């Protein structure tokens, strides 16, 4: 029997980590993810986990220590937000290139500057091409479930890439909601033992990691990384299927909410999907055929599947909680529209930058987007695809 609880998103992440019982956790405090290492160090102090907790002096060292620990042959985890992730940036790329399945809980927050502690996705978007598998979570339940699935995905020998589970800072990290936890022994069995093939502490096989990799080899090594990311898609689906067998909770690459017969739809990630579902229900009551596509797997980007799911629509709005400052549109918009174009799906599509620096996203704002989509669906015209939602005039 699963365990019914009421937990914040950070508590849920910490409990997932406790059940995973990693060998090493290296972390540094930063709002709003600080609670995760706080809760976790309590588990360490009380002896409920076997983990060596390394209270590093910076996020750069947190990721460096995770790289060292994972390379040594242990399971390593961390948590961070915003500038913490920016400070790790160099090591984020190195972790992936060394093919180390480190798992991170990323509690999304606006990257400075100016400094702001609230939620948007500018931190995650800064590492979207770094070679990490990136899973997004609507609520505490998904943040927990994604973490439980994380190691099985990252450690699969076809993948061997680091993985981050994202959730929205404060909105879900600090909100207490109902959650269904899985029993400790079931999580332990599901996650399984870590058996790395090559590792530094194997006295039977000495290895050297992190070479100077010049013109004759680096290109092929990067190609292998690209292949690993492509392979991750099927592995994510396999692991999600096993997870569904254990819990009954179904996860795909993305969630389609009333999308099948929809005429207009929003594409978004994380907690905004919850608000959008509420608006979709309201509009459906009024007979408006609104739908939602909520991205769960952002890296690898399921381009073909998304294009297919959006192919029957009359108008689409992609919501980006991060601006790209490229005079074109946000990162999710760019990915979705290029996925559609390459797969010959031509539907009028607009982009809304929203929620920057924790600007509240209200049901009314989402409803206005659907009203705009209705107009676009009628006329087929998009006068300005790069728009803002919730911005003061």
């Amino acid at each position, binding site marked *: 029997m699963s365990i019914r609880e009421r937990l914040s998103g950070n508590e849920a992440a910490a409990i997932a980590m406790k059940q995973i019982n990693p*060998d*090493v956790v*290296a972390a540094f405090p930063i709002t709003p993810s600080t609670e995760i290492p706080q809760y976790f160090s309590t588990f360490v102090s009380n002896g409920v986990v*076997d*983990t*060596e907790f*390394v*209270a*590093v*002096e*910076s996020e*750069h*060292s947190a990721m*460096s*220590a*995770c*790289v*060292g*620990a*994972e*390379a*040594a*042959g*242990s399971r*390593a985890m961390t948590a961070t937000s915003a500038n913490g992730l920016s400070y790790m940036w*160099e*090591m984020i790329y*190195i972790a992936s290139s*060394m093919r180390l399945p480190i798992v991170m809980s990323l509690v999304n927050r606006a990257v400075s500057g100016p400094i702001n502690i609230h939620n948007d996705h500018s931190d995650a978007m800064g590492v979207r091409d770094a070679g990490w598998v990136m899973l997004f979570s609507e609520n505490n339940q998904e943040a927990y479930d994604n973490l439980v699935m994380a190691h099985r995905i990252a450690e699969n020998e076809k993948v061997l890439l680091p993985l981050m589970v994202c959730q929205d800072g404060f909105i879900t990290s600090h909100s207490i909601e109902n959650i269904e936890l899985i029993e400790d022994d079931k999580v332990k069995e599901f996650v399984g033992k870590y058996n790395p093939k090559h590792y*530094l*502490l*194997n*006295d*039977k096989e*000495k*290895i*050297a*990691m*992190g*070479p*100077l*990799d*010049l013109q004759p*080899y680096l290109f092929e090594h990067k190609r292998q990384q690209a292949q690993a990311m492509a392979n991750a898609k099927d592995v994510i689906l396999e692991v999600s299927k096993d997870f569904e067998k254990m819990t009954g909770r179904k996860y795909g690459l993305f969630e389609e909410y009333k999308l099948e017969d929809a005429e207009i739809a929003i594409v978004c990630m994380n907690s905004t999907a919850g608000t959008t579902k509420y608006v979709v229900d309201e509009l459906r009551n009024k007979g408006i055929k609104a739908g939602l596509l909520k991205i769960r797997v952002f890296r690898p980007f399921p381009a073909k599947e998304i294009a297919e799911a959006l192919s029957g629509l009359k108008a689409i709005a992609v919501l980006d909680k991060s601006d790209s400052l490229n005079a074109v549109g946000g990162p999710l918009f760019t990915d979705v529209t290029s996925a559609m174009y390459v797969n010959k799906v031509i539907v009028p599509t607009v982009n809304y930058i929203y929620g920057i620096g924790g600007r509240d996203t209200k049901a009314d704002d989402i409803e206005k987007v659907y009203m705009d989509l209705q107009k676009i669906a009628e006329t087929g015209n998009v006068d300005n695809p790069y728009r803002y939602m919730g911005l003061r005039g």
Partner: protein
Amino acid sequence: MAYNVKEIMANKPSRLTAGHRMCAGCGAPPVARMVLRALKEEDNAVVACATGCMEVSTFIYPYTAWTDSFIHTAFENAAATLSGVEAAYKSLKRQGKLSNDGHTKFLAFGGDGGTYDIGIQSLSGAMERGHDMVYVCYDNGAYMNTGIQRSSATPRFADTTTSPAGSVIPGKMQSRKDLAKVMVAHHLPYVAQSIGVNNFKDLYEKSEKAIYTEGPAFLNVLAPCPRGWGYPTDMLMQINKLAVDTCYWPLYEVIDGKYTINYKPAKKLPIEEFLRPQKRFKHMFKPGNEWMIEAFQKEVDDRWQELLDLEEITNK
């Protein structure tokens, strides 16, 4: 324990093998070889290296000169990376997840750029956390790998590519950071300053103490660079000797806060002897620049006296 350092050098296989691509006359490879020789043959080691001359010359894919497990990740974080390896070892060993019960030692190597400058935060953090590791700085006094730029280890007045001896500013105008003392301030069980060539016994014994003292240890080892210092490659031994005999680079160790100077030259040589063979100090010998040699000598004298005082005070 009675031993013969010559026999050890002759009979104990080098754990950093030949075939690496460090320059002729470079002081760094003998440092790595001697430090690794201090490991008991039956002990395993994991070596971490900061980006720098030593790393890019010893591990060019698909070849490595290291016979122990080795990891390089970036420039500033050899200590942090190795602290992760050491934490994993502790964790796996405690949980009985390692296949054997032998001992594994953890050694980091970084140049002065990767240690005094960009790596000092990572080093300070790892030392403060008390990881059981030895951090070895091979100090050649500038960013040699990128082409001789000044670091905080560069001696005053040295001509480097970012502190060039010009007509207005005659080289680096700031004094060298004293990193060994910064490490002493971390209250480590073992801190030492040594040289890689000339006095092999000194480095061997200090390495052994550092490796087999539980907890974090720091070795600062002078590693002359023929390109950056501008001495003939066959002068490596002599340059090291002059650094020590002028008291520019004193050999000392600090065990639990107590200073011991391991070598006090019977006749302290004037600093010119050390400066003259090096092109980086050439401008100091031009007429009218005598003040620079005087100022350099004063700094060496002051620091030597401070060390003598520290030895006396901490052994009272």
